[in-house]
């Protein structure tokens, strides 16, 4: 097993793997660089060297690195900027990774984490919590309701599509559209009866990373990490399932079980992302699409690459709205404004000429 296949394609196979290694390392380095640069940017400018010193000081626990640094800097870095930056990166990576999985299961390169109505469910839950002014569970009540809404939606979608013919992609997509349509009518109704609360609901729906805490980082990080391991474990099955359920089954995949596990894992990750950050579109659609252009459709490469690229993209967008633009635009609006036209461009180029 440890020697390379001596076949004619082995040179190319190796080049491809090397290219993947190169792509992964490029993305990792860029992401780390962006972490540092982005942390320095904002109303209070902090030089990158100081950022690194502060982070090192926090990790090592020794006071030496803080010498000669403005004493407000560590507070800004550790309590304000890093939690927001890490949450943005994790949500971006999580959504992109979920996009890969949803596209794979639904056999549709245009699916995204929201295709099955997860976002509509989360939005309904959040709107309900805001409307009822629920503070029973403290700061977490809106995210909690968003999560419950998303989970209930997924349950309903699976229940609807599990009839005859099993969990086929057509059944899932159709059920998702129906449930999402009902829920968005529900959201409209909640907005209608909300009176002055309507602004809060709308603002939440547009998404934001403002005032994220280390608690958010921990929650998102844990769910995204758990999701990533599930996706990575089943990446090969996902490859086979892109040949259709019957063929995947004849190649040894328990398609129903794998579909359920992946759907559940991807929906939990998507629901957590939405509940932490609101509805952020296009990352889960655009990133897997572009990474598939660059690196091919093998999910074993696509999952990690999309995670990194998604993290990079959303962190970049959040930095743009937080520190570069004169006014902070809601992140969900920004990603749709940039991502939409870009997606049109990619899609048009693809349908016009060479496929990938």
């Amino acid at each position, binding site marked *: 097993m440890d020697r390379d296949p001596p076949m004619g394609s082995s040179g190319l196979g190796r080049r491809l793997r090397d290219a993947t290694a190169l792509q992964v390392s490029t993305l990792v380095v860029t992401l780390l660089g962006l972490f540092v640069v982005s942390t320095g940017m904002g109303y209070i400018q902090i030089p990158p060297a100081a950022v690194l010193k502060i982070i090192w000081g926090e990790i090592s626990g020794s006071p030496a690195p803080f010498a000669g640094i403005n004493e407000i800097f560590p507070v800004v870095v550790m309590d304000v900027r890093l939690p927001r930056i890490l949450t943005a990166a994790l949500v971006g990576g999580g959504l992109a990774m979920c996009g890969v999985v949803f596209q794979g299961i639904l056999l549709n390169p245009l699916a995204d984490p929201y295709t099955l109505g997860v976002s509509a469910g989360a939005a309904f839950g959040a709107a309900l919590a805001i409307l009822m002014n629920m503070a029973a569970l403290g700061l977490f009540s809106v995210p909690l309701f968003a999560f419950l809404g998303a989970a209930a939606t997924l349950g309903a979608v699976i229940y609807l599509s599990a009839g005859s013919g099993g969990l086929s992609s057509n059944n899932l997509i159709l059920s998702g559209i129906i449930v999402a349509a009902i829920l968005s009518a529900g959201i409209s109704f909640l907005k209608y009866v909300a009176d002055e609360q309507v602004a809060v609901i709308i603002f939440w729906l547009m998404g934001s990373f403002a005032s994220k805490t280390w608690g958010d980082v921990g929650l998102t990080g844990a769910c995204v990490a758990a999701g990533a391991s599930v996706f990575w474990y089943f990446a090969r099955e996902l490859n086979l399932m892109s040949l259709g*359920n019957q063929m995947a089954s004849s190649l040894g995949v328990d398609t129903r079980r794998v579909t359920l596990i992946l759907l559940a894992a991807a929906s939990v990750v998507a629901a957590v992302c939405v509940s932490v950050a609101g509805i952020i579109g296009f990352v889960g659609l655009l990133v897997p699409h572009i990474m598939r252009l660059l690196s091919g459709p093998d999910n074993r490469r696509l999952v990690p690459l999309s995670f990194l690229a998604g993290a990079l993209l959303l962190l970049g967008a959040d930095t743009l709205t937080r520190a570069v633009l004169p006014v902070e635009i809601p992140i969900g609006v920004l990603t749709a404004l940039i991502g939409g036209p870009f997606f049109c461009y990619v899609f048009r180029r693809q349908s016009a000429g060479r496929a990938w």
Partner: protein
Amino acid sequence: MSFELQEVRFSFNGKKVVDGVSIALAPGKFYGVIGPNGCGKTTMVDLLCRFRSPQHGRILYGGKTLGLYSKRHLAREIALVPQNFYINFPFRVRDVVMMGRYPYIPRFGRPSARDADLVAAVMESTDVAGMSERLVTELSGGERQRVVFARALAQDTPMLILDEATSNLDIGHAMQLLDLAARRVSRESGTVLAVFQDINQAAAYCDHLIFMSRGRIAAHGDTREVLTPAAIREVFAVDARVYHDDFSHALHVVYRR
């Protein structure tokens, strides 16, 4: 290993699609299934490769109930070339053929030298080696079917199930692939079960024919014995003449409109 079906039944929404099928399939034979559209051929195939489970009756493989095998084990025993195949993602041809080796490769492992050799040999023999680097999404229907056939051969199983696997192919490629399947039967005493639309193609390749009609087996047996005008009349309601053709060394069927 042998297949044994005992009184197998399967219905969709109350409609009996497979209605009491009993038959034994022995190793070293090429079986052909023929019958009109909607007679339950494809459902039979789904049952044999355990994509569906029988609602009544039993399917034994090597004396053991099919449902008791692990999926992965079964994938090393039975390979399928489906009727329709569509793929939305731009895998390369060699990647798709290599997927036939997945049941042998550990989850996080790389293909071994043997896997690579086998894939290369199969791609050569199915005439897809020339499009090894092409994207499967850009192939024509017939080319795609050859790739899927190659993938099933790469699975290297004792049992091969073909569900109208040559329906989109030109006669040259169809015969090339059926010859490969027949070689599995004669040299490695494998079993092939193939669903055919073209009765003449079935007659040329199959040792044993199974006529299906309305979910049941109407007749089955040695090709020379069961391929008769009476059987064709019963199953397809068509007037036919069956004769031995000296050029093809096989039975030949002609029809009257």
